[in-house]
């Protein structure tokens, strides 16, 4: 069971290898309830692998991850049940292309949460309205723009009433003019007090809503500090280099 002040997501010395190559090296960090943590770093630094490890999509060989007090790596854990409480948004949206937007929003609610079809539609449409896409409810994912698809994907994740949301580079596959419509939804969500772990290069988003910033390089967490500390005087040389590269162009 959960202690009153235990973190929502708790990573303890997580390591992962692909053969001899180490992709995650002793990664430890925490995300408290209602906290927004941005994970950034150069490509290939293990950010995506780390966030996928949080809901057990990427297995890891060493260390422990607890979500709401439940161990992700424990073979006795009911992973599907745990995942149903954690929302995840992917870089490539991953809406189900053979289903209408409405079906995308209700499938998980009906099949996993065992909600009635009516209840699921009601909840789904409310969230679709929240992301401003109620008019698209009968369309198929392929008929929507990238930004719209990602907003539907966020609504789909929220329809499961998650206790935390994971975002894996949610704007990296988008055309520049569509990035903001997705970030706006995420900012709203953060302001509502959702617990969020966000892998992104959008430093504007980090500045606006993040509580903490985690900087990764070569599979290790190099910086883990408050937003102000990070943007003020990022301590490691590698983080400073990274910031100067993505902020000045």
């Amino acid at each position: 069971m959960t202690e009153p002040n235990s973190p929502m997501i708790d990573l303890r010395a997580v390591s992962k290898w692909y053969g001899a190559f180490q992709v995650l090296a002793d990664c430890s960090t925490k995300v408290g309830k209602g906290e927004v943590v941005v994970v950034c770093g150069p490509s290939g630094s293990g950010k995506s692998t780390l966030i996928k490890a949080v809901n057990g999509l990427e297995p890891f060989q060493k260390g422990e991850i607890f979500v709401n007090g439940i161990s992700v790596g424990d073979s006795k854990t009911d992973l599907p049940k745990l995942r149903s409480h954690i929302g995840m948004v992917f870089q490539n949206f991953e809406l189900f292309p053979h289903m209408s937007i409405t079906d995308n929003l209700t499938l998980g609610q009906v099949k996993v949460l065992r909600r009635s079809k009516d209840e699921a539609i009601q909840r789904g449409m409310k969230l679709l309205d929240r992301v401003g896409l109620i008019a698209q409810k009968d369309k198929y994912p392929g008929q929507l723009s990238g930004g719209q698809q990602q907003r539907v994907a966020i609504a789909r994740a929220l329809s499961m009433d998650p206790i935390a949301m994971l975002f894996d580079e949610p704007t990296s596959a988008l055309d520049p003019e569509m990035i903001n419509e997705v970030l706006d939804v995420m900012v709203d969500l953060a302001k509502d007090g959702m617990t969020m772990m966000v892998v992104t290069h959008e430093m504007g988003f980090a500045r606006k809503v993040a509580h903490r910033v985690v900087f990764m390089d070569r599979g290790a967490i190099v910086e883990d500090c408050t937003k102000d500390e990070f943007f003020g005087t990022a301590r490691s040389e590698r983080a400073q280099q990274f910031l100067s590269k993505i902020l000045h162009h």
Partner: protein
Amino acid sequence: MSGEFDWAVIWKYREALWDGLVTSFKLFGIALTGGVFFGTLLALARLSSLKVLSYPAAGFVNLIRSIPFIMAIFWFYFLTPMIVSKFTGQQGEAVGPFTSAVVAFIMVESAYFSEIIRAGIQSIPRGQPWAAYALGMNYWQSMGHIVLPQAFRNMLPVMLTQAVILFQDTSLVYVVGLKDFLGAASKGGQITGRIVELYIFVAVVFFLICFLASWGVKKLNARLAVAR
């Protein structure tokens, strides 16, 4: 044999030919259903990360695919009665040629279909099952609702082509004396000496069925291309 064609023989043997055609279609239907069903299971086993599933599945598929179809039919004709009598303890012919042909066809077709289905499953990006799992679905829900529907849609044209080949292959059962469409024509031909007429008729019917099916596949392909 007289110099002129006598087409009346077809009408005379219409009942036997019709029964033969029904047998062919029955065999086709059962083999297709069983082949796709077991082929899907074989494909899933082969793609499994569990070696106890993937190795035997790969072994079975490779073995079946490396022996001639006609040999498999022969083999099962003699083998299935033996196995059945082992289990039931009864001597003699426990299963007829139709049952043994069905067993052979399902096994062979499931091996062929599993390769098509495996490629279809692999054509679905990894993010799709990930998204299904992230919503809390288990393996079977992810496969049943997300991966397989998309995979089948992608591989439908290849599957239908394989189905047309399967229909043509049903004529191979004449080797175990099963009276399918071709078998009925053979029998009639041997009795009347009008084998050419009957074989031409069989060829025309096969051609029409397969031509219509191929045409349908082409139509369907065009429709799917638009829908995507």
